[in-house]
């Protein structure tokens, strides 16, 4: 079963760009790379997903190198409300969550 590895925590300041890298060395051919955000006592919320190259939506960008063994979530100009835990579960038949990254945005 493919496993993901992320930094345990990251601190940032309002208005800065936050980049979180996830390693998934054993990613399967049919796995999509997904990112979810979770606030305390709430369910994870989908942010973005991709298979390869770069994907951008209204809240984030996702960079995936050609070998797909890692991915980087980029959050532009973060605000205090972006303080949360971020996960990069691989999406095959189900989502398998590894340890997430606790992002703290400071004023």
């Amino acid at each position, binding site marked *: 079963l493919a496993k993901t590895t992320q930094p345990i925590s990251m601190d940032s300041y309002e208005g800065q760009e936050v980049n979180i890298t996830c390693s998934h060395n054993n990613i399967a051919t*049919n796995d*999509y790379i*997904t990112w979810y955000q979770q606030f305390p*006592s*709430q*369910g*994870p*919320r*989908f942010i973005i*997903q991709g298979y390869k190259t770069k994907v951008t939506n209204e809240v984030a960008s996702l960079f995936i190198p050609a070998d797909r063994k890692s991915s980087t979530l980029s959050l532009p100009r973060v605000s205090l409300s972006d303080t949360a835990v971020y*996960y990069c579960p691989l*999406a095959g*038949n*189900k*989502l*398998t*969550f*590894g*340890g*997430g990254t606790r992002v703290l945005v400071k004023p």
Partner: protein
Amino acid sequence: AAGVIQSPRHLIKEKRETATLKCYPIPRHDTVYWYQQGPGQDPQFLISFYEKMQSDKGSIPDRFSAQQFSDYHSELNMSSLELGDSALYFCASRSAGGQDSSYNSPLHFGNGTRLTVT
């Protein structure tokens, strides 16, 4: 837009009691997933259903069972509750897109049921 509805939001039970958690997926979503998240832990996959049939099984104890009904809602039944079962239980749904491997729709999570076993 309609979201995944879970009930109850909070549940307090005593050891050895039973509990039933309910999940109502987003309309037209045919796949339901159950996750357990203990305090300070990451969500752990329990079980999933596609078109009312169990599609995958994770770390679900034998004391737990689940099913998906004809209206696509799902119930997680938990018996002989233990203190360690205290956790947030999330349900998620998605449209499987005909199980097409080239299309992967994201999961939509409910806000969970917080189960406390005393």
